[in-house]
């Protein structure tokens, strides 16, 4: 099953099994906005529960928060991460803080689903992912699926969670095809970073489409005798780094690739957690971060080609780390 279809599978399971689940956002009745991830859901479950909205990101996100405070489990959908920024107050000031500022026992079981939709010369305001922005906020859980199985399961886990959860999927992954098990209830608090491929020479950490990129790199390097361990982050906040720490203790080398700007990013956080836990001498080679060039996304095709991290660049870095290793 493809990644995009697996998201729809998750929606279908949730809407079918839990009457309190509703979906609200712009373009839900149109594949132009959400791909095939919500195809015909409004026909099956009704436009009362699958709600296409006015062009009002802030009010619609607030409405999701309000419905969550009154017994429902809304999934607020933004067809681009960039558009969700118009609703920042409701996500960051309201939902993330509600339980704390009212002294607990004030859960907000809302999902903010945002779609990364970049490339195709869409440019600076249609290309962002901003993972570490959201992961910086205490009170927001952030999940990022890289596989069809997780696209389904993490949507279910996010929706059944009593806390506000940011779920970010990526249209670059929608056609990835893999086996997906029957949907079932998943407890988000049991989920965390996962080793997708075991290896002994170097630890590669990614999320969303950079996990796919790292898996491709690992596959190619296997033929050259380099054994890569790939960890998929999956749950960015709260971050349980134990799987990564365990891996680096074994491999002594760490490379992080993210689909975002590098400064103050996911790579910085992951590398710091490892050093804090294992000490500065654990690494046998300097750690590496791969990500976007520090610029807004360009439109023209040749510039897009150099803007996003490429598997060849990652392979080059890994080989350099192997050569310079003190181990």
């Amino acid at each position, binding site marked *: 099953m493809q990644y995009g279809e697996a998201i729809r599978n998750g929606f279908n399971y949730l809407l079918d099994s839990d009457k309190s689940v*509703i979906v609200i956002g712009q373009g839900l009745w149109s594949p132009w906005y959400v791909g095939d991830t919500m195809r015909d859901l409004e026909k099956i479950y009704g436009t*009362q*529960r699958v*709600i296409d*909205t*006015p062009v*009002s990101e*802030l*009010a*619609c*996100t*607030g*409405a*999701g*928060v*309000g*419905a*969550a*405070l*009154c*017994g*429902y489990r*809304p999934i607020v959908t933004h067809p681009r991460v960039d558009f969700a920024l118009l609703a920042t*107050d*409701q996500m960051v*000031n*309201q939902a993330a803080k*509600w*339980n*704390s*500022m*009212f*002294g*607990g*026992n*004030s*859960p*907000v079981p809302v999902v903010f689903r945002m779609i990364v939709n970049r490339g195709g010369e869409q440019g600076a305001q249609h290309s962002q992912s901003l993972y570490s922005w959201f992961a910086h906020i*205490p*009170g927001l*859980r952030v999940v990022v699926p890289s596989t069809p199985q997780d696209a389904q399961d993490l949507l279910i886990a996010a929706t059944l*969670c*009593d*806390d506000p959860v940011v779920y970010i999927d990526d249209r670059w992954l929608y056609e990835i095809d893999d086996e997906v098990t029957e949907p079932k209830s998943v*407890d*988000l*608090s*049991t989920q965390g970073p996962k080793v997708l491929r075991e290896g002994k020479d170097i630890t590669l950490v990614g999320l969303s489409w950079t996990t796919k990129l790292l898996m491709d790199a690992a596959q190619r390097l296997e033929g050259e005798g380099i054994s890569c361990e790939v960890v998929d982050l999956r749950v960015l906040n*709260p971050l349980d780094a134990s799987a990564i720490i365990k891996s680096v203790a074994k491999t002594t080398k760490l490379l992080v690739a993210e689909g975002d700007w590098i400064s103050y990013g996911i790579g910085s956080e992951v590398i710091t957690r490892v050093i804090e836990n294992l000490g500065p001498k654990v690494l046998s080679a300097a750690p590496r971060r791969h990500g976007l060039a520090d610029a807004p996304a360009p439109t023209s095709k040749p510039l897009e080609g150099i803007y996003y991290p490429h598997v060849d660049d990652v392979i080059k870095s890994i080989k350099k780390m192997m050569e310079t290793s003190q181990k």
Partner: protein
Amino acid sequence: MKISHYEGLGTLRLPEEHRQPVKTAGFDVKQLIGWHRSMVLIRRVEEVIADLVESGEVRCPCHLAIGQEAVAVGVASGLFADDKCFGAHRSHSHYLALGAPVEGLLAEVLGRSTGCSGGFGGSMHLKAPEFGLVGTVPIVGATIPIAVGAALALKLDGENFVAVSFLGDGATEEGVFHESLNLAASMKLPVLFVIENNLYASHLHIDYRQPGDSLVRYADAHHIARELVDGNNIVDVAQATNRLLTIARTERRPAVLEAVTYRWRGHVGHREDIDVGVERQHNLPSWKQRDPISRLEQGLLIANSKLEDEFVKNRNEVDLEIAEALSRARSAPYPDASELLRIVYHQRNS
């Protein structure tokens, strides 16, 4: 639907007008005495909080609604505990009008664990869900769309409860107010927007902020039923509220109430707000002549001169209740330090 022409506040903004006693004929005296008690309770609790702010015992920012009591009590008179109310930074009055306990408010502004928000909210983050108050927050306009979402939930529930969004005139200048009115109108959601127009956003008069002084024009723009009332006349507020609530409950669509009033204290803190401009300094004594509590008392005395005893009884009861609540609040502990990280998320990590 007929769209009416824009009308301004007219005499409603003039403190020399609308000072006459509230007309109480046809009303149940017992109910009016109850409203009197609620207004006196709000007035006295906020005066006590003002004193605690002045003495330094209360340290959180407190925005007092002294002078605006009739709006909260008049609106609350039409509500049930299963309705869902939301407020903002100036919401002590809403909390108390809905019947939530005095001790929960006083302990909260004192930062104690027995406060309505466990000592994590202070004056600006109040909740009393069992009385219908889901939450109040100090980002201006933030709870307006949240109330619309509550109305969506209540509509899906299929019963006849409504959501209520208390907001001030300043909040109507936020974009989200207009998004929310459009969303509520186009989705036909049962929410009552109560705009307390006290003419000032912090220090700045509405004449410097908007091209018109009355806010019902925004309801007209969104085809929403609306009423404009003297917010210092509790009977007018209650009657208009009931007409609008009937629309929201039975027709499942939104409504807007604009209640014109005036706050006696500063935007924040205990001081009388006379130092922020000539107009305010000039008008405050006049607005005190339009006091919602005395006007109700005068109206009741016209009907029955013996009711003075009831007013005294209300004041004495309220003062006793506040004194006892304050004493308990003062002896309560601060929140335990372990709570800080424990309540960031509701769901426990396994």
